[in-house]
């Protein structure tokens, strides 16, 4: 009986020890890095969804509504305000398409985030002032160029996992 108790305690303590050393580091690698990469992908995708709706209007696939441009621009402003926080130094993973040089060129990266915010601000202002569709389309294209510029410098397409 005593022997059995001793055995159980030993097994438990080994398990505890293991859980202290092994499990937390696994939790860290998973929850930490993957978490923030996933978070920024979600933020980027949300901006993409906003751009999709406006883009369809610019392409003439959806009826034009300037209220949609105000809403879309605001969504981009909200999400772009979080971008810098979602790229903590060295946060990469197998799934991430971010290029590590964004951290060595951090100032430039921040300038690009600000540019997206600024172009989205202008789009929101135009939509609020009741500008015509031509003006909105033109500003939408400028905003899109700011997304493309950053993706040109700091993102690289990876092959899909099969």
């Amino acid at each position: 009986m005593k022997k059995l108790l001793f055995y159980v305690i030993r097994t438990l303590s080994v398990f505890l020890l293991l859980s202290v050393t092994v499990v937390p580091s696994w939790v860290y690698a998973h929850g930490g890095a993957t978490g923030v990469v996933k978070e920024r992908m979600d933020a980027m995708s949300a901006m993409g969804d906003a751009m999709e709706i406006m883009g369809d209007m610019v392409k003439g696939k959806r009826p034009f509504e300037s209220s949609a441009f105000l809403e879309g621009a605001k969504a981009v402003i909200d999400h772009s305000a979080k971008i810098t926080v979602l790229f903590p130094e060295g946060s990469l993973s197998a799934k991430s398409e971010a290029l590590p040089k964004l951290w060595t060129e951090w100032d430039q990266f921040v300038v690009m985030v600000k540019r997206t915010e600024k172009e989205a601000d202008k789009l929101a202002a135009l939509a609020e002032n009741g500008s015509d569709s031509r003006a909105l389309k033109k500003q939408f294209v400028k905003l899109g160029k700011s997304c493309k510029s950053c993706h040109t410098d700091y993102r690289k397409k990876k092959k899909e996992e099969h």
Partner: protein
Amino acid sequence: MKNRLFSVLLLISTILLSVTVMAESESEQDSVKRGEYIFALGGCASCHTNTEGDGKPLAGGLKMETPFGVFYTPNISSDSKLGIGSWSEQDFIKAMRKGISPEGDHYYPAFPYTSYAKMTDQDLLDLKAFLDVQPAVSELSKEHELSFPFNQRSLMAIWKWLNFDNSEFKSNPKKSTSWNRGAYIVNGPSHCVECHTPRNLMGGLDTDEGLAGNEDGPDGEAVPALIASNNKEFGDWDVSDIIFSLEVGMKPDGDFLGGSMGHVIENTTSRLSEEDLKAIAEYLKSPEG
């Protein structure tokens, strides 16, 4: 009397001469203007202007890392010593179409003459006229850093023999003018195939797999296919989606293109006429594209 006749003749010939000079400079200016468009169509700035390193226009110096070693693009500004300012039209056409330098050396296919070979004489001459009037930059081109045996230019003769189809562009009489224009742009000056077509073990284009994508593109970048059978998503894009992605960079789902395609959009497709973008889209949408 004789004197009068002489001065009249002189006057007439001066007028005639100035008229022809004017006509010539006018057609020369037209050529330069067309050449500027060809320059965008060819995306020369993507490689010969090192924007990231704050390089001067056309002075080269862009670093290209490949499995064979590091290439640096050369100076193609109009400097007569360090650029290509002293080249004749024939020198230029031979370089662009045969991949051979004025000294008779073979170029490496990191210079996509493999596609430029399809360009028409007129386009190449206009392009040269444009390059000739760009500012000269007196900067020495950097030497490539290639390992043996790739540092032997003469080997490129064998490579070309196996991989280089230098036949001229043939239009397809069964297709529309616009489709043929698209085929010319994609396979010729805009060299879309250089990235979007997979390569064989020797680094030559696998022409049986035209535009089938390249998962391990240059610099480890994945390049998507532009044919519906290999890229279902792309197969669902309509003509307006393709044009919008080439003009602005936006995919139908709101994501934005980037990486090396970002440079192609910046230097080439965002500068093309609506007509040419339509032609590209028509070609890519067709089963042959």
